[in-house]
């Protein structure tokens, strides 16, 4: 037991997690969770990709849905203006990276542009040819956008439900959303309910005119469905 604890501490030291502000809070599950949603962008994804070799760089389709309609702009470094797409939009993102997209053109919020970030932690393993039929849903509801416009930040962890522990409810209006207190560790809560897939952060921050492309971070490729052969519908 002491050997295992020593290894964990050693791994945490090497990974640079023992810095001020990163200490784990009181755990609800009794397990030690060194990661939480308050870490800097990309830290959780990098940690997960380090633990699971072969995970980093895999393409995972992600479907971004707005309250009704609108536009989603992806920034992959090819052009400063990004790639504009209609919502709901589906694109392939690389696991282990952080993407910052722009959502705009929402009829419920005219003239409003928000720049949420999507940190992709894990991926699915569908049957061959069915990758595009099972994207990771990233939804932005009206109340979340209103919360962001009130200068508050909405943080969500999208997780894959454990089938035996799944809530016996229908999903007609999108994924089931559960609100937890801000002091909670979302990754821990998601891990208790299933497998965390992505961290979505939505705030009211807009790009600084003097910051340039640094606001969007390093460019990461985006694979659009038009570049991927569409499989036939699977009955």
């Amino acid at each position, binding site marked *: 037991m002491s050997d295992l604890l020593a290894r964990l501490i050693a791994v945490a030291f090497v990974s640079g997690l023992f810095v001020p502000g990163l200490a784990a809070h009181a755990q609800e599950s009794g397990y030690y969770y060194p990661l939480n949603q308050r870490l800097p962008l990309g830290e959780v994804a990098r940690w997960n990709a380090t633990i699971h070799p072969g995970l980093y760089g895999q393409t995972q389709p992600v479907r971004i849905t707005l309250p009704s309609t609108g536009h989603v702009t992806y920034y992959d470094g090819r052009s400063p203006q990004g790639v504009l797409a209609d919502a709901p939009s589906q694109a392939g993102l690389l696991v282990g990276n952080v993407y910052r997209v722009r959502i705009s053109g929402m009829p419920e919020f005219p003239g409003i542009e928000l720049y949420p970030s999507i940190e992709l932690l894990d991926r699915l393993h569908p049957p061959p040819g069915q990758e595009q039929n099972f994207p990771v849903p990233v939804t932005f509801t009206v109340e979340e956008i209103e919360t962001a416009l009130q200068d508050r930040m909405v943080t969500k962890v999208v997780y894959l439900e454990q089938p035996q522990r799944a809530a016996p409810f*229908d999903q007609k209006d999108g994924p089931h959303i559960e609100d*937890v207190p801000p002091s909670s560790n979302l990754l821990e809560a998601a891990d208790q309910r299933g497998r965390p897939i992505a961290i979505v952060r939505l705030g009211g*921050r807009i790009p600084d005119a003097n910051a340039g492309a640094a606001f969007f971070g390093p460019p990461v490729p985006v694979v659009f469905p038009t570049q991927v052969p569409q499989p036939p519908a699977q009955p």
Partner: protein
Amino acid sequence: MFRRAVLTAGLWGGSAGLLLCTSSCRTPTALHSSTPSAAIASQTDGTGEQGQASPAPVDETARSVAAAAHTTAAHTTAAPSGTSSAPTIQQTTWVPPVPEMPAAARAQSPAGQDDQQHQVQPVQHQVVSPPADNVDPVRPIVHEIVPRTPVVAEVCPPGYPGVPNMCPPGSPCPPSYVVVPPGYERWEFGDEYLCDGGDRGLPVHYDGFGRRGLETEDTIGEFKDHLGEAHVRPSSRVCIYAPRFAEVRTASLPITDVAVNKLAANHDRIGPGGLDTQLAPGQQQQNDELHGLEMRSRASGVDVDMSDSSLAKVDRIDSHVKLINVYEDLSFATDIQIDQLGTAVIGQALQNALAWSGDTVTYIIAHNFKGQELTARFAIEEYVGIEDKRTPGDLKIIKLADRKTAKPGDVVTFKIHFENVGGRELYEVRIVDNLTPRLQYIEGSASSELDGRVNIEDNGEGSQILTFELFEPLEGKTSGTVTFECRVR
């Protein structure tokens, strides 16, 4: 996920350290998140939104590739630089560094070979025997390396628009994650499938209170054989790829406040306020002398012999032996059975007169005794029976679904095919299906080839338990099918 991740990090401590060292050594910017600015930013909830996005490993890999290519180019140009001082840039092929590979995976991806082919030639090690006349020549030992399925191809990210190829040309993959032994990529994919059937967890069994161990997803068949004994048989398990997502959410107020906690020029001095205290050692010496007292002691010349009074006392333990013998007690308590056998006895007495007198006649005394108990034994002289050579009945259940994949809202049709693989009849056959919480039974969709009925009850976990009961016994070598539909939640 992260519980397993932490555990994996612990169990693979050595390898994880190697991976971390590999990534950190190759990409020095991988651990830049522990800078003081990032730590301060993490105190607020708006870190992720306001902080800079950390450099991604894609960029690090590209940088490492570029650095390695630059190093390779420098080495290649160093050789001809002996003749010419002006450095010339030559385009060379980048050769990735050979990473540390597990022993199990060393044979599958030799560095420098084409990953597409991956044909490992058998390596022959020949042992040359020393020349000797009386020793047979040693046959060469051939070690063949069995080529294994290359796995680097499936973990190598393909090229993307804007980034033509993340892998250097000709090399299998970026070295940081090129080595993935088979079966070690991921192992927890079961949460993406919606399964039903089988008997997971505690096996279904019966105790004095009824049926136990029927969890969700379980599908079993119950029956009684020709001897009246109850049996349970699980069905096959069918899985549909139907991942479902959910979210945990929180909203916080980002605070970009800078709080400086320090002493605001407050000098607090506490010192002795002019209080002088002298504490001298209070040494006090007092000499007391005896005056005019003389005392002389000498031996008085009286010898006193103190000797032992020759009193000897001997304490001896008396030897006391007490023998307690167990008196022999013989007690017989037996069941006393008194068997009285009375048979019909005819007593005859004949007495002759010793002295014949005139009026003395001979007389007869007879006694009649009846039997009190009559015991009879019947032996079977002949046994006539009919031997049934049919095999005992048994149930085989196969569960099928009409879809391989499903999304929430789709309707899946399940078929449960059961067959009596034995020869004798099966009685009270029931097919029980405890649906998983993500399946909603569609009312009225159940049907059966054989006559029976279906009972639907709540399983307490948001789904239902379907029980198909057959009215008639299931004959040997016969089968049936029940069909029902469920909606995927």
